[in-house]
């Protein structure tokens, strides 16, 4: 046989922590975009964003001053799909590996649990961010629609959506902050069970709980501990950020919640392996 002997070949090894994370990230992200799975989620999200857009355009035509995203993110229809986005994205990440048995291959490779959690988390988060990119084309599309009405009906339509930085940077940053935590929560749910369905249900339950916790002050009014609920209220944060009021408190909140959730996820994986 022409294959060289063991001693002839030197194998380049790398012990870089991030390189391994990126390897896991690459495979995981690829499994989002190279399979129908990710495209179905994208299509779903865009369709529902369309609903959201439709209702918010109605409101927007009557009110003035705020950007399109302000009306979209403060509409009830936004929460209908936003809550269910996260279980969809994350439920299979670890549950599927466990069900298929590939987790064994992953955990017997020279990879730490933290690297696995980090790689998978970053892939899901990157995919989540990807879901918001098509929204950036809406102003261009409104421009196109204006041209079309001008050509076809000879009417000058002046309903434009602007690329004003304040209209976009605020909503996008709060979507990035809340998403960071919610994706981490979904990943944690995925680690809890070997079944995607159970993981998805738990994640949906936690999402709805967090959503209601955000609206506690609206339901109960003010009470001594209400400031806590004001602090964690993602509905309040989204409404102020989408006005362009950028605040660092939610950044601190969601960054710490994300790190804590990821740490718990790592513990859950190790614990489940330990007791199996």
């Amino acid at each position, binding site marked *: 046989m022409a294959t060289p002997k063991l001693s002839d070949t030197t194998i*380049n090894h*790398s012990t870089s922590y991030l390189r391994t994370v990126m390897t896991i990230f690459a495979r995981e992200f690829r499994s989002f975009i190279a399979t129908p799975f990710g495209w179905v989620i994208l299509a779903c999200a865009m369709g529902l964003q369309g609903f959201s857009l439709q209702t918010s355009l109605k409101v927007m035509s009557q009110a003035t001053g705020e950007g399109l995203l302000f009306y979209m993110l403060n509409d009830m229809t936004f929460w209908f799909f936003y809550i269910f986005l996260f279980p969809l994205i994350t439920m299979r990440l670890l549950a599927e590996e466990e069900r298929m048995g590939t987790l064994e291959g992953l955990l017997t490779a020279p990879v730490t649990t933290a690297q696995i959690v980090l790689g998978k988390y970053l892939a899901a988060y990157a995919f989540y961010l990807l879901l918001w990119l098509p929204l950036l084309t809406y102003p261009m599309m409104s421009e196109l629609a204006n041209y079309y009405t001008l050509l076809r009906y000879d009417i000058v339509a002046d309903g434009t959506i602007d690329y004003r930085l304040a209209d976009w940077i605020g909503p996008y940053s709060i979507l990035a902050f809340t998403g960071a935590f919610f994706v981490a929560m979904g990943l944690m749910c995925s680690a809890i069970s070997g079944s995607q369905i159970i993981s998805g249900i738990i994640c949906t339950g936690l999402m709805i709980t967090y959503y209601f916790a955000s609206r506690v002050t609206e339901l109960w009014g003010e009470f001594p501990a209400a400031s806590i609920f004001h602090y964690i209220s993602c509905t309040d944060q989204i409404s102020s950020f989408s006005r362009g009021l950028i605040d660092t408190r939610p950044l601190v909140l969601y960054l710490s919640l994300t790190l804590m959730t990821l740490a718990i996820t790592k513990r859950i994986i190790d614990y489940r392996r330990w007791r199996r």
Partner: protein
Amino acid sequence: MNRMAGEFWLEKWLISASIISRMSMVQAQHLHKAFGRFVAVKDASFNIEKGEIIGFLGPNGAGKTTTLKMLTGYLPPSAGTASIAGYDITDNPIEARRHIGYMPENVPLYDDMRVYEFLDYRARLKGICGRSVRQQVVRAIERCGLEVKRRSLIRTLSKGYRQRVGLADALLGEPDLLILDEPTNGLDPNQIRQIRELIHELSENHTVILSTHILSEVEMICNKVIIIDQGVIKAADTPENLTTSLRAAGRVTVEFKGALEPAMEALASIEAIKKVIHEASFDDGWHSLTLRAEPGTDTRERAATIIAELGYPLRHIYRHVPTLEDVFVEMTRRD
């Protein structure tokens, strides 16, 4: 920072130096694993030298897979520890795993990937980088005869090819120790032979632990056998030593025609024979006896002479040659 890196390399060098002096690939010390009240592995200690091919035998549910999973670091042991190439699996699991190529039972693979993609991913996961990735993947594909299937989706592969992909994965990065959990499970005889030949070829450069319950396979390729039953290691030795020390070894069956009593007395007087058992008598005057002898002795010649001296005709004399199967049955029998 530099000082730390220096210390790290010094430590690494010291450890590798100690490995060379000991040449021990796996050292399991009192490995113990309990799942709730069920104890899967009890106090398993064994030592595997570099370059050995180990057959890991045991009935279903004996704790084979659990032991192997503990060695790979997938299942943390409830008590005890093991070291792979000098690295402790609980204190230094990542470094220990770098020396292992593991093929799990039933070969779990990512169904939505193509063969070369999967192997590329696995190679990178094992810390191989740069040009070596391609080199290693190509080499593993070549060795396992996967060239025709390299672009196929893993979902579409037959059982035999899936098994080979699992084996190719284990070979990536030339690990010192290969742990193969039932590598020939579910293959047809030709495929089994190919895999066996491959393992034989690999044994030149690797230490191999092979779990199986096909005994002929073990007799053919392994130079050491570990038998485990109900979580307890019953034996760890070469197949030759195991078979010669067996109770059944040296047992002789004799069939002659004549008076039973004097023949039995005369045969019992032979030194190495412990007991003469009367098996059966036939109507036409023939008797069948079993002579229980000490292991490793051959009493056929003396027994034949004694029968001849008595003047009886002898039509059958047979010395039982014990096989690994006898060893296995004797050690794992439930009665």
